[in-house]
């Protein structure tokens, strides 16, 4: 049989000159840009703009606030502040790359913190182990994520709507449970552990670093990460390639819910409280950090490194402003402007790397 087909396929193979032309074109297309492409292609290169922005911020901080900014203490403060929202943003990166959005992260943080600090939970923690409180926050956060995911994947609701409903409901439930009172944490071991330091670096920062590293591996080295990009890039193609798109969607929101649970634990330790007002407007900060980090809101493309840089830029900015005694309203305006500038810049970089 193969003998029969050989002459045919030989007859339709383009003549050698065409072959060469195609290869030459490919070479030419590749060569002049190759060095640049390689740099721009690496995650550092792609985030070069962000690194520069962060450096500029640091220079501005040093100039305007001097040692008050450049001190080790202040650096650790920035990192500690960045840690909580950072963990949420890592989770958010996955959901957005997967083609979704989650507006309920702040409310989930609040609900998790309240649930984990009720009298009943704290009593149980004192009777058994302080880790119970952390465990409770993680379970509640993940649970909310599962509900979001089920509503979106199997209830066929728009992510915007489903998580908007969760935003309202979770914060409301947090208010009901806490009776709108701030719940003080009396379990010393819990507070001490998470507010402690390891090798001179706060545990909160370690957690953020660990979550970021695991997020990077998950996105870039595992089947889960690859499928997330596929689902967000072209969900029809993903489904027709045999990927269980619905199940994957549920997993993505669950992952984000879990990240919210971690963030709740960190926030509880930092404030030594659980409260229905925790995590207020986290959804905006997290989405802003992810978008500044270069992740496409339409899905299918994004980086963990970009998100981490986005978070650091945002937090440093707040810090520089606070040190210079700018009020929060001015800060909010500045944040808005920064988001717009960052996205405009990202688009221009994307356009330069993109179209042929």
């Amino acid at each position: 049989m193969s003998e029969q087909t050989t002459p045919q396929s030989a007859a339709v193979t383009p003549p050698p000159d065409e072959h060469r032309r195609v290869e030459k074109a490919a070479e030419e297309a590749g060569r002049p840009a190759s060095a640049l492409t390689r740099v721009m292609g690496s995650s550092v290169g792609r985030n070069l703009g962000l690194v520069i922005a962060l450096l500029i911020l640091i220079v501005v901080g040093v100039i305007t606030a001097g040692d008050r900014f450049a001190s080790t203490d202040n650096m650790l403060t920035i990192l500690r502040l960045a840690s909580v929202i950072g963990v949420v943003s890592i989770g958010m990166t996955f959901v957005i790359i997967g083609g979704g959005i989650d507006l309920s992260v702040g409310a989930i943080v609040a609900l998790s913190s309240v649930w984990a600090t009720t009298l009943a939970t704290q009593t149980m923690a004192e009777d058994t182990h302080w880790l119970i409180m952390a465990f409770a926050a993680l379970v509640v956060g993940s649970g909310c994520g599962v509900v979001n995911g089920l509503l979106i994947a199997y209830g066929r609701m728009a992510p915007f709507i489903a998580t908007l409903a969760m935003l309202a409901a979770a914060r409301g439930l947090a208010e009901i449970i806490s009776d709108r009172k701030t719940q003080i944490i009396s379990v010393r071991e819990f507070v001490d552990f998470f507010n402690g330091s390891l090798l001179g670096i706060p545990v909160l920062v370690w957690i953020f670093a660990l979550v970021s590293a695991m997020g990077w591996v998950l996105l870039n080295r595992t089947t889960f990460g690859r499928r997330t990009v596929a689902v967000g890039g072209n969900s029809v193609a993903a489904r027709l390639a045999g990927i269980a798109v619905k199940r994957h969607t549920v997993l993505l929101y669950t992952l984000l819910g879990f990240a919210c649970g971690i963030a709740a634990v960190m926030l509880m330790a930092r404030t030594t409280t659980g409260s229905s007002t925790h995590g207020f407007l986290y959804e905006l900060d997290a989405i802003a950090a992810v978008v500044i980090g270069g992740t496409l809101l339409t899905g299918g493309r994004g980086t963990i490194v970009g998100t981490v840089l986005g978070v650091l830029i945002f937090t440093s900015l707040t810090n520089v402003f606070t040190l210079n005694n700018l009020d929060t309203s001015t800060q909010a305006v500045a944040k808005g402007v920064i988001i717009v500038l960052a996205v405009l810049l990202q688009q221009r970089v994307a356009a330069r790397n993109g179209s042929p």
Partner: protein
Amino acid sequence: MTTALLRMHGIVKEFPGVRALDGVDLEVAPAEVHCLLGQNGAGKSTLIKVLSGAHQPDDGTVTWQGEDVRLANPIAAMRLGIATIYQELDLVDGLTVAENIYLGHELSTAGLSRRADAQRGAVDLLARLGHPEISPRWEVERLSAAGKQIVSMARALSHDVKLIVMDEPSAVLDQEEVARLFRVIRDLTGQGVAVVYISHRLEEIRQIGDRVTVLKDGRTVATGLPAKETPTAEIIRLMTGRSIEYVFPPRGNEPAVPDAILEVSGLTRPGEFYDIGFEVRPGEVFGLAGLVGSGRSEILETVFGARKAAAGWVSVNGKRLRAGSVDAAVSAGLGMAPEERKSQALLLEESVVNNLTVASLSRFARASFVQRAEELKAAREQVEALDIRPVDPTREARTLSGGNQQKVVLGRWLLTGSRVLLLDEPTRGVDVGARSEIYALIRRLADDGVAVLLVSSEVPEVLGLSDRVLVLREGRQVYQGPADEIDESRVLDLVMEGSAA
């Protein structure tokens, strides 16, 4: 040709790393149908984007009715009277026909739209196009591809248009719709409008064209050829630098394994298809022929589990598949190359490697960690075996030509070890040269023992490639038997007249 309507001379357009147009000449006379021919990548799309003002040429001149003009943007082109109807139609689904026709230049008084005038205008335009049955009040969403094309043309005519550019208008149409489109085109030229017509189908160009311009590698290789008299061999030689038309590989021998690998029985989805049953054996190519809307693609998608059958069953190797589950189909060894390659199969922004391995990712993973070296090795093997060009598997899929993209989709299923391949319009958007390659590839897969279920709207393709065929008319089987016992005219007779006897 001193009174040329449009004359483009020495047009050059460069993109980073690619010289898409390298000195193209095009001359269009008033009221003629000028056909633009060329393989994918020859520069047709870029040329019409220059013509429609979407791209700015780096060099060259454009003369319109004897005057030098600059087509700075699509609005400028529109003002001159150049309208372009793209392959991907640019209509807004949620708006009505009339609203779409007047989109961007709504009839209004002091900001209030004059809906009644728009409706009347739309009725006139649709009548002028010979399609009075389309109501201006319908939402565009409910129209067929052919209907949408008419609305696009009506929109073009709502401006004072002298030249309409049509980019492969027949790609989404069945034969009857094409015939109607040709009537419309003749009416237009009768009214003095010139048409630049792009198509891969030579027979269409003979029917409708006046003159032909052939592009190859960004250059004009021939212009002003008479469309009806120029021999096919000559046109193909100009387009390809080759002198043979694509050929179908010889059919395989009688399959060694007599038992069917894919069995379909009583498959029904009301409104789409009824009581479809057939068997495909390993090494066999089984073709489904029928008009657009006859249920061909729907059957394929139902077999694959992307649609759920209302009745009937599909079995692979004697085991019935769970209905409506792509997962089950893929694990049973089915693979599908869907009709809309770009929107249904490819991850355009991702590399060829990632596209190849997306369905078989777990094969390349240990404890969920993707082993990139193994993955890349397997991808390279596929790139070589399928002759995917360029040879670099780290390229983004969107940079490949249609034929090579199709090979990537086929390679994806070869990597999963699929024994049954469902191919929906495998050569759509694939140029003439690459077509024969795809044909040879399909036959080679069958020779390797893969069962192929093929759908194509081109009857010669189904007949030429398949061992056995099933002919559909309005969702029902009207013939099933060996492909060499039926010819094209008989198939056309069956699908259009539908007498099964």
